[in-house]
C-alpha cells in the first residue's frame, strides 16, 4: 500500500505541475515557479512560529503568503526598478530563502522544518500521515490536499482555458480585443503559487521544478496542439512518477531525486528521438 500512496501523491503533484507548467513554459516564466518554491521558506517559519505547530493549514497559509511576496518582489524589481527579469527573479528568491534560514537557525532549532525538507520533501514518509477520509478510504493528509488542488486546477483550467490560451499565445491581440490580460496573469500566478506551495511539503522544491518544466517540455517536443500537450504532460508526469519510484526502490535512493532523474532520462530520449526524426524528414524533403 505504501507504494500506492507514494505513487499517487507524486502523480497528483505531477498533474498539478503539468497543468501550470504547460502555460508557464509557453509564457517563458518557468523560473518564477522555481523562485516561488524556494521563497516559501520564511513564510513557513513565521506561520510555524506564530501557530506553534507544523499543522498543514497555517503552514500552507504562511507559504502562500511568502509565495505572493516573492511574485510581488519580482514584479517590483522588473517594473518599478527596471531590473532585467532574470536578475529580478534571482535576487528576490535568494533573499527570501536566506531570511528563512536565518529565522530557522535563530528560533527554530527544535522545529521539524529545515531547508533540507524544503529542498527534497518527505515523500518517503508520506504514509505516516494516513487518516481516514470517508467510506472506509484511508489516505495520507497531504495527498488529500493535493487531490483537492488537482480538482480545483483542472476545473480552473477548463473554465478559464480560452482566456489563459489567448493571453499566453497572443497577448497583444488579447489586449487589443479587450481581454483582461492582467487578470489572467494573476489567475495563472495564483494557480502556480498554490501548486508549488501544496506540493513542496510532500515532494520538495527540486521535484516541483522538475515537474513544472520537464513533462510540459517533453510534451511540447511531441505535439503542436496545446490541449494535447497539456494532457500528454500529465501522462508523462505520472509515468515518470511510477518509473522514478520503482527505480528509487530498486537502487535504494531518494524518491524525489530518482523521479527528477527519470524525467531527465525521458527528456533525453524524446529529445534525441525527435531530433533524429526531424533530420530524417529534412533529408527526405530535400
Amino acid at each position, binding site marked *: 500500500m505504501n507504494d500506492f500512496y507514494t505513487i499517487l501523491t507524486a502523480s497528483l503533484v505531477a498533474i498539478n505541475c503539468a497543468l501550470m507548467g504547460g502555460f508557464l513554459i509557453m509564457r517563458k516564466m518557468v523560473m518564477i515557479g522555481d523562485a516561488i518554491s524556494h521563497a516559501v521558506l520564511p513564510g513557513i517559519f513565521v506561520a510555524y512560529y506564530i501557530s506553534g505547530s507544523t499543522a498543514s493549514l497555517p503552514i500552507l497559509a504562511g507559504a502562500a503568503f511568502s509565495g505572493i511576496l516573492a511574485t510581488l518582489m519580482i514584479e517590483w524589481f522588473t517594473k518599478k526598478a527596471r531590473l532585467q527579469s532574470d536578475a529580478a527573479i534571482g535576487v528576490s528568491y*535568494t533573499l527570501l530563502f536566506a531570511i528563512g534560514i536565518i529565522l530557522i537557525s535563530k528560533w527554530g532549532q527544535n522545529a521539524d522544518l529545515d531547508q533540507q525538507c524544503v529542498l527534497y520533501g518527505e515523500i518517503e514518509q508520506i504514509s505516516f500521515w494516513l487518516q481516514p477520509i470517508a467510506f472506509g478510504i484511508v489516505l495520507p493528509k497531504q495527498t488529500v490536499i493535493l487531490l483537492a488542488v488537482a480538482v480545483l486546477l483542472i476545473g480552473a483550467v477548463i473554465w478559464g482555458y480560452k482566456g489563459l490560451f489567448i493571453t499566453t499565445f497572443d497577448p497583444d491581440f488579447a489586449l487589443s480585443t479587450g481581454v483582461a490580460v492582467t487578470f489572467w496573469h494573476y489567475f495563472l500566478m495564483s494557480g502556480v503559487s498554490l501548486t508549488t506551495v501544496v506540493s513542496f511539503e510532500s515532494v520538495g522544491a527540486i521535484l516541483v521544478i522538475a515537474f513544472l*518544466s520537464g513533462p510540459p517540455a517533453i510534451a511540447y517536443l511531441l505535439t503542436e496542439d496545446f490541449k494535447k500537450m497539456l494532457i500528454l504532460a500529465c501522462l508523462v508526469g505520472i509515468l515518470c512518477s511510477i518509473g522514478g519510484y520503482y527505480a528509487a526502490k530498486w537502487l535504494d535512493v531518494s524518491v524525489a531525486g530518482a523521479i527528477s532523474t527519470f524525467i*531527465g532520462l525521458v*527528456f533525453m530520449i524524446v529529445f534525441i528521438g525527435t531530433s533524429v526524426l526531424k533530420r530524417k524528414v529534412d533529408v527526405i524533403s530535400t
Partner: protein
Amino acid sequence: MEFWGHITTFFSAENYTLFVVGIGSGVLCFASGVVGTFTYLRKRALIGDVISHSVLPGVAIAFMLTGVKNPVYFLIGAVISGLLAIWIVDYVQAKSKLKPDAILALTLSVFFGLGIVLLTKIQHSGNDAQSGLDIFLFGKAASMSITDVQLFSIIAVINIACILFFLRGFNLVSFDENYARGIGFNVNFLKSFLALLTVLTVAIGVQAVGVVLMAALLITPAAGARFLTNSITRMLMYAGLFGFLSGVIGVFISYSGTGMPTGPWIVVVLSLFTIAAIMLGKQRGVLARLKLRKGNHIKINNENVLKDIYKLADDGQKTIETSILLQQEKYAASELKAILNRLEKQDYLDQVRGFIILSDRGRIAAREVIRKHRLWEIYLSKYFQMQEDHVHDDAEGIEHVITPEIEKLLIKLLERPEIDPHQSEIPYE
C-alpha cells in the same frame, strides 16, 4: 562593549582562523561578483543557479571514485559536471524550440535530482566519511578550515587575474559577439573560458554558502552595480566591492551572534547593498527617476498654465481674472493655485487680488512654448502629410521636450515659417 570587542578581535587578527575565514570569504565573494557581472550583462543571470545545482553529481561521483574527502577531487568533479550542464543548456537551446527558461529549470532540477540520488546512495552504502558532502548542499563558510580557505582564495585570485587579463575580450563578448568576432577576437574561446571561470567560482562558492544561495553571489552584486554606473569597468569594481564587503560582514555577523549561519547573512547583507543601490543610483535609481518624473511634471504644468494665460490675455498684454483660467477646467482649483504660486515665486507672473498678469519673463517663456508647438505642427503636416486637425494633440506633448537646438533645426528646416497650419502667427523672439 561586546560588539566593539568582537570588532577589535576581528580586525586585530588576534583570532587568526576567524580573520582568515573572513578575508577568504570576502575574496570568494569578490570573485563571484566580478564573474557574475559578465553573466548578468549577457542576460544569463540564472545560469549561476543552474551551475550551482549541477555541481552536486560531479562531487558525488568524485567521492564515489576516490573514496576520500579531498577538496581538489571535489573541485574537479564539480567543474566537470558544471561545464556539462552549461553545454547541455546551450545544446538543447540551439537544437530545439524550447525556450531558455524551461531548459534552465529542467537542467538544474535533473542534475540536482541525480546528485541527491547519488548522495543517498553514498549515505545508504554506510560510508561514514560521507557526512562532509552535505556542505555542498547548504554551505559552511564559518567552519571552513584554513587549508580550504587557502585553496579557495588561490582559485579566486587566479580567477580575478584571468578576468583582468582578458577584460577587453570579455567586455566585447558580453555586449556584441558579432562585433567581437568581426574585429578578430576568438569568441568561442572567450565564451568557453568565461564559462570555465564561472563554473570554478561556483564550485568553490557552493561550499561556502550552499546550492541555493550561490546564485545570489553571482547575480545580486552585478544587479546593484548596474544601477550605479554605465561603465563596465566601474560596474566590475562595484560588484566586486559589494561582494567583498558582504563576505567579510557576513562572517563577522555569524561570529558575533550565536548560532547565526554565515551564507544567509552574506546574502542578506549583499541584498541590502543592492537594494540601496537600486534605490539611490544617481541616474537609474528608483528615487532619481521619481525625482526626474516629478520635475518633468512640474515643467509641463508650468508651461501649460503660462501658455493658457498668454492666450487668454491677448498675447500676454492684459490682466486676466484667475477665475477664467479655472473655467477651462484643465486643473483643479487647489492644483492651479499651487502652480500659480510657484510661477509667481519664480517671477513669471504677478498675482493681485484674483487677477494675474504675466511678467516679461513669463511672456518670453509662453511665446517659446507656443512657438515650439506651432513649429511642430508645421513639421508634421509638411513632412508627414498629416491633416491639420490631427497635428495638435501630438504637438501638445512634444512642445515640452523640444530643446533649443532642435528648435533651431526646425526653424532652419522649415525656412522660418510665419504661420502654422491653423493660420496662427508664430511668435518669434
